[in-house]
Structure formats: structure tokens, C-alpha cells
């Protein structure tokens, strides 16, 4: 067994296409690594207990709550955060749809909503409004922008504008 010490362990992650290395304690969550070490503060901490979805990122393409992931356990993974999704000049279709459908107010839940919706679309299971609502239930929005959020996702599933959804 590869015994690793209690203190600093090395992790290598590919984050938004860029290889990043860090030396961290094993108790550091992926969420804290992203925010505190890599300064990728787009991913938000809401509850820190898997109950709100604000911390949702894509790990190897799958949406996961980064607050419940020990970063060392995902050594070698590919991570996509909101910083890797679209740019101010070229929005991802979901970002574009969120803007047009007023799918946010304070915006705190939005990075998690977008990452979650990208995961939802690539899973390819949710099609109807009820199915989208259920499949997005892991993302809470304190501002109650749910109707706009579902409208935006429904539209992108039906007819992705601009570039194709990855």
C-alpha cells in the first residue's frame, strides 16, 4: 500500500484544461483547494455539507458536490469549474440562456446551477420540465429564480443556440 504521510500530499489535477499541482493536507476538500489554493472562487461554498449544490463542479465530466470530495482522492482527475465555461465575449449557451431568462438574482447559486445543468444535459436523461426540475433539485436558489432556471435549461435542451453544448 502506498502510505502517504499525514501532512502535505501532492495532487495533480487538470482544471479547465490546465494541469495544476498542489501540496495539501488530506483533509482539504476539492472546494477549498479550488477556492483557497487556486484562487478559483467562481465555485461557491453554501452549506459545505452536500445540501445546496452551490459547490457543484464537473469531475471527469460528471457533476459532483466539491464540498464532500477530499481533493487527494481525486488525484489525476479532470475538473471543470465555472471559470472554464464560456467567456464574457463568448458565453456558453446555458449562460446566454440564463441571462435572457432572468435565471438569477444575487447570482450566488449560478455557477453551481450552470455546472449542474451541463452535467444534466450530458447525462441525457431529463427532457420534460418535470424531469429537469427533479434533476436540478440538488441546486437550491435562495432568491427563488427556479422558473427562469428551468426555462433556460429547457430551451438549451430543445435548441442549443450558438455553439453546441459540451
Amino acid at each position: 500500500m502506498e502510505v502517504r504521510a499525514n501532512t502535505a500530499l501532492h495532487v495533480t489535477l487538470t482544471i479547465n484544461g490546465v494541469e495544476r499541482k498542489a501540496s495539501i493536507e488530506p483533509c482539504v476538500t476539492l472546494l477549498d483547494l479550488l477556492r483557497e489554493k487556486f484562487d478559483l472562487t467562481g465555485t461557491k461554498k453554501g452549506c459545505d455539507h452536500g445540501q445546496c449544490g452551490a459547490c457543484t463542479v464537473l469531475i471527469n465530466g460528471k457533476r459532483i458536490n466539491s464540498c464532500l470530495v477530499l481533493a487527494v482522492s481525486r488525484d489525476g482527475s479532470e475538473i471543470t469549474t465555472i471559470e472554464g465555461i464560456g467567456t464574457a465575449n463568448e458565453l456558453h449557451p446555458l449562460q446566454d440562456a440564463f441571462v435572457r431568462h432572468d435565471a438569477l438574482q444575487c447570482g450566488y447559486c449560478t455557477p453551481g446551477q450552470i455546472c449542474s445543468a451541463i452535467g444534466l444535459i450530458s447525462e441525457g436523461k431529463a427532457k420534460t420540465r418535470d424531469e429537469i426540475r427533479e434533476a436540478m433539485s440538488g441546486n437550491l436558489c435562495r432568491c427563488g429564480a427556479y422558473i427562469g432556471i428551468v426555462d433556460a435549461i429547457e430551451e438549451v435542451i430543445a435548441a442549443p443556440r450558438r455553439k453546441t453544448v459540451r
Partner: protein
Amino acid sequence: MRRFEYLRAASIDQAIERLSFDPGAKLLAGGTNLVDLMKYDVACPTTIIDINDLPLGDIKETSDGGLRIGALVTNSDLAFHPVIENRYPLLASAILAGASAQLRNAATVAGNLLQRTRCSYFYDVMTPCNKRTPGSGCPARNGLNRNHAILGASQDCVATHPSDMCVALAAIGTMIVVQGPNGARSISLADFHRLPGDTPEQDTTLRNNEIILGIELPPAPEFQRYSYLKIRDRLSYAFALVSAAALLTIDDGVISTAHVALGGVAHKPWRDTAAEVVLVGRPASRGNFHQFASMLLSRSEALSQNGFKIELARRTVVRALEQAASRTPQSQSDKRVH
């Protein structure tokens, strides 16, 4: 979170060996329960053995026509596996009724089996709890117990097992395959989770130095009717107050097999095979379902705040059986209960 040593197991034997000599060690799968409990200091492992490199991620048909599912298969991959969707739709439905898409993407079969109760006293290290700190007392018995057990509870513990997946596995009849220092053994799901008695700190009959390798499902009978009905305070992303998993086979209106398990009501998924026998050979009628539900709940006992769960459980069982009988299983996205 307390500090701990982190190891990555390269083989099953290595994980077992470490568990055998290190009583403070815990296995890490998806982490969605263990990491959460560590943040509350409810779980304080001194060593974390990460098992995610172990070859326990397969789903294979067994020679008898059943299915062997590896311990590390995620809840999402299991629910969306074509064989599960087609032959074990009750299991797919129950998994999709639980947690959220993100959590199911991380959560594993073994982690789900071993998830711990959501009793608020268990989670709060400032309060006594016999499950967390044996001998300290059970404040839930006379405290906040609205969500707690109505069946099989003890003086020492009234906690419930929170899993949805396990309720379906109980109805299907599942074997848990585990391995320890002396080799492998199989435990039936009915004997895997236990009642609290005077040792509520033990959720299951798994030994400290054993690892779950996977589960085995029996062959799925053809033409089975099913429904998983979960009743909760909000329609999604909440634990069950009561849930029922129903499996029926009906020939010419007469029931030939009936398997029913309840969730949210006891320290383990609740099933009473003696009561099920009563349904066999009788018409699939509402009256018979009512009679069965009364038998199933005949030994239920209310605490100060959860008396409503007895009637709720009765109605949930009847409705789930009706949904199964009429081939209109509860949808997990359209939440109207028909």
C-alpha cells in the same frame, strides 16, 4: 475536521490488513456520508483508506441469471444501467428517489448500504447519543422524534436507516458479499442491517475488518409489477418520512408473489415475509392491501411526535401496492401520487 492519515489501497487484501490492525481506520468510497460526518466530528477516523482504485466497479450477470454489482458502482451508474432499468426498475426508481443527481454521481453501492442515520442528535456532538457515544443516552426518545422509528426501536435508540436504495434491495431480496481476513462470506440484506437493541452503535453485522465487495441480486421474475413510493416533507432532495417498495406478480387477478419493504420507519429496511404470505393466492384488491398493511404495522409504536407516521405508513403501503398492481409505478419526476 480532525487530522488523519491518508492511504490509497492498492489491493483488497491490503485494505483488509490495515482494517485488521488499525481500529481507527475507515474506508473511503464516494465520501458523501463519511466526509460529511467528519466535518461534524461525528466520525473521527485516524486513518482513511481510499478504496477507489480497487477493482469493484463492475456489473455482471451471474450464472443463475441474477446480477453481481460491485461495491464501487455509483448510484447513478446503477440506476441508469440498462439491465437495472429493464429488469430491476424498482431499484432504479428507489435510487432516483434519493439524494440529488450530484450526490448520486459520487455515492457508491457500499457507501449507500453503510450510510448512517440522519437523527439530529446523532449529528450534534454536543448532545448525548447512544449510537455515537455508547451509554450516553438517547435524547430523541423523549425529544425531537418526528422523523424517528415506529417499528423495532429500543429503549436505547429510536433512529431510522435513511436509505432509499436499501428499501428496494430488501424487497428484491439481496445478498451482500463481503471479505475479511478469513475469506469471503455472503450476508442476506435482511440480516445485514440490524435492530438497535442495546448496541445501537452497530448499524450492521459487517465486522470492523471486513470490506464489502458487492451485492448480488436474484434473477428478476418476468412480468413483475412494482412501485417505489416515497413520502417526505418536500417533494425532492429530502429523506423519507415513510417509503414503500412493492413488488407483485399477479396471474388472472390473483397475487402469486408479494414483496413489500418499508423505509424511514425503523433501524433497518422493514420487511415481514409472514405478512406477505397472507396476500398470496388472494385477489389484488384494496381491501386485501389494507389488511396486509395492518398486519405489517401491527407492532408499530408511536413516540411523542411521530404517531402520524403509523397511518402514513399504512396508506403508503396500500397506495404503493395499488400502483404496482395497476402497472402505474410512482414517477420520480412527476410527483403527483395517483
